[in-house]
Each structure stands twice: as structure tokens, then as C-alpha cells.
């Protein structure tokens, strides 16, 4: 556990040295979202209807960009071996790395989403619900990604496979995130899907770090 905290701290330090990645991810998020609105033809009604879906899908994709950073660099420079050979439970290791990755690549998307939502014509309570869904959904997503990234970390061109493994499993998170925002935009209570997202997050926190830890051990050869 204390070793887990040390890993967490180390991760933050490394990510801040790699600040270019962070900027690239945020830029990708903003630019891709605006691409959709350009292609959709700038009709305000259509935009409001599609806003939640577009922002969620682009958030998913931009997090996908950062997922290889979870374990691939550690695998390449030999740090992963060292961490697996320390006495820390690999589940804590996976959790710490996922938490750092989320704080750096997920949290900015949550904070930016109201702005982009507003540009898509979302109003009122929906502008609060959208970041709330992202805040609940993206950590669960990154935990799923931790499992997939641990499974594919040893592969030279594992990024495509990583995406293929993550996307089907991430479907429920995406659906509920979009659903809650749409309900809120149409003036309905969005509590139920938000609670479902919360339940997913809890279940993911309870189960996926162990799966990711087992995956790290399994692919450590």
C-alpha cells in the first residue's frame, strides 16, 4: 500500500515531465469534438441532440490515446519487472497507475466537458450532468483499460489490440453516460443512469484492479 503511494507519486512526476502528451490529449479532445460539429452541418438543433454522444465518444477515443502509457513504457525500460518484484500487491500497482493516468488524462476532459457541451447547445442542468457522467464513467473506463493494457503491454504493436479489447467492454459506460445527459437535456430526472454509472464505478474499483494485477503477473515473462 505504501509502495503503491510511492508508485502513484512517481507516476505523477513522470507524467508532468511528459506534459506534451497531456496537451496533445486535450487538444485532440477539443479539436475532434469541433470536427463533429463542423461535419454535422452546424444546425443547432441537431447539435444539441448529438452533443452528449459526440463528447462521450471523443472522450473515449482521447483516453484511448493515453492508455498505452499505462504499462508500455514501464515494460520497455524494465521498471515493470522491478515493480512486480517489489512486495507490493500487483492490484495496488495497477490501481495506482490507473489513478495517475486518470488524473492526468481523464480529469481534464471532465473539466472541459461543460464548455464543449455549451458549444453544442446543451443548457442548464445538462451542463452539470455531462461532467458528472464523465467523472463517474471515465475512472471505470480507465480501470477497464488497465486490464487491457496489462494484457497487451508486452506486445510490440499492441495499441490496436488494446482498443479492440477495451471498446466492447466499455459499451455500457458509454451508453449510460450519454443517456443521463440526454435525459437531463430533455428535462427529465437523470438520477437513475447516474446511479448506474456509480454502481459500475464501484464494481470496477472492486474487481478490475485484481484482474489487472493478475494480468500484469501473467504477461510478465
Amino acid at each position, binding site marked *: 500500500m505504501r509502495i503503491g503511494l510511492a508508485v502513484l507519486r512517481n507516476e505523477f512526476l513522470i507524467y508532468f515531465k511528459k506534459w506534451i502528451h497531456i496537451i496533445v490529449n486535450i487538444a485532440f479532445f477539443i479539436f475532434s469534438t469541433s470536427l463533429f460539429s463542423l461535419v454535422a452541418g452546424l444546425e443547432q438543433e441537431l447539435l444539441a441532440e448529438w452533443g452528449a454522444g459526440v463528447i462521450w465518444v471523443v472522450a473515449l477515443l482521447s483516453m484511448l490515446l493515453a492508455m498505452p502509457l499505462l504499462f508500455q513504457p514501464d515494460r520497455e525500460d524494465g521498471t515493470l519487472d522491478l515493480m512486480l518484484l517489489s512486495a507490493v500487491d500487483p492490484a495496488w500497482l495497477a490501481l495506482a497507475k490507473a489513478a495517475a493516468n486518470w488524473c492526468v488524462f481523464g480529469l481534464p476532459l471532465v473539466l472541459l466537458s461543460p464548455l464543449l457541451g455549451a458549444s453544442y447547445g446543451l443548457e442548464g442542468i445538462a451542463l452539470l450532468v455531462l461532467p458528472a457522467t464523465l467523472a463517474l464513467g471515465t475512472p471505470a473506463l480507465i480501470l*477497464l483499460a488497465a*486490464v*487491457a493494457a496489462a*494484457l*497487451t503491454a*508486452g*506486445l510490440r504493436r*499492441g495499441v490496436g*489490440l488494446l482498443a*479492440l*479489447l477495451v*471498446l*466492447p*467492454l466499455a*459499451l*455500457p459506460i458509454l*451508453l*449510460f453516460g450519454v*443517456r443521463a445527459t440526454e*435525459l437531463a437535456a430533455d428535462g427529465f430526472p437523470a438520477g437513475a443512469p447516474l446511479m*448506474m454509472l456509480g454502481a*459500475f464505478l464501484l464494481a470496477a474499483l472492486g*474487481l*478490475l484492479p485484481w*484482474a489487472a494485477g*493478475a*494480468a500484469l503477473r*501473467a*504477461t510478465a*515473462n
Partner: protein
Amino acid sequence: MRLPNWLHKFASPPHFYRIAARIEPWMLWSGLAAIAVGAFGGLLLAPPDYQQGDAYRIIYFHVPAAYLAMQLYALMAIGSAIGLIWRMKLAYAIAAAAAPVGLAFTGLALATGMLWGKPMWGAYWSWGDARLTSVLVMFFLYLGYMLLHASLEERSTADRAAGILAVVGVVNLPIIKFSVEWWSSLHQGPTISRLAAPAITWDMLWPLLVMVAGSVLFSMAVTLTRARAEVLLRERSARWVRDAAEACA
């Protein structure tokens, strides 16, 4: 937690290999015979449906495939879980053998489902349908399992890694199905005029049951054949493997 003793004995790879080799042809040929009878009954003997005409006959091929897609996924996940918990190579072998068979049946279920959907709903595909979408997700999970297994060079590593994926996937599948259902029940999409299922008559039912039974037997036979190959690969250092490989030259 230990496995019961009789299971250990049954699960000894040479024992499994021998037993599988013995029962496999019986399952294969009885399965094929049942499929032939079922297809004959379904295509010729069963009366046309009063609403769907002859198009409903597709279910004689669609339902067994969809059923097997699920069953084989369960087999793959259970095999993987047993392998992960008890480090049993045979379980991994069965999981790895079930995957391609399951992938084929999932693809068949999707294809026949689409061919059925066109005359019934007027569209090959409907994203609003929970079953279609979750079967598609299952297809990708099978694909992910096989690609991951194929891309990891060390077999024991591949078994464990792909096994973890299968177990995570099986936990997620009900959630996916449920969430798509919930999604489509609220979504104001194109409503599907699914024909109310009338009580199916015996004339129509028996070929379906025979088809399902035959497909199950057939898929088990194919899975056993593949599992034998996988067991041989995993037991490479055992003496009986050499004998088995030489015996059937």
C-alpha cells in the same frame, strides 16, 4: 480449495485425450445426422408460418447458432476460470478450443439474424435491438480472446492472459445486454414491429429441437477435436504425447 479427486483423474490429460478420441466420432456423426433430420424437417415438413411465410425457416439455423454462441462463450470463460484458479492445463486447452468454434457460431448467428431481419423488419441491422448488439459485442470478445492468444508467443502466458480477458468479458456480457436493453427501451429510435410470437406448434417445434441438439453434439465434437490438439501442444514434455503423436501417424 482443491478439485475433487474424480475430476482430477478425469482431467488427467492422457485420460482426456483417449476418452475424447473415443466419443468424438459418435458425437460428430450423430450430431450431423440430427442436423440433417432437423434441416429436412424444418425446410420441408414444417408448415409455413401464417404471418412470416417461409422466411421463418431461418430460425432452424439461427437459433442453434445463437444458442451455441452463448454456450461456447460460457464454456470458454469457465474453462479459463478453472485454469486460472487451479492452474489446470486441460481447462485452458478446452477454453482455447472453444473460442474459434464459438466465434464461427457467433458469426453465423449474426449473419442468419441479419438475413432474417431484412424480410421481417425491413432492415438487416437495428442498433436498437439489445440482442443484436450484445451478440456483436460477444463476437468482438471472442475475436479479442483469439487475437490476444495468438499474439502472445508463450503458450502459458497466452492462456492466462486470454483467460483473464474471457472472465472479465463474461462478467460484462450481462451488463452489456441489460444496458443496451435499457437504452433501447428509452430510445426513440425506429420502433421494430416485431411480430408477436404465436405459440409455436409441435410441427414447427420438433425440427428446431432436433437442430439444436444436433448442433450441440456437433460443436462438442469439433471442440473436442480442437481440445485434443491443444492438449498435445500443452503437454509437450510428457511421454504419452510422443506415443499419441506416433500412434496416429
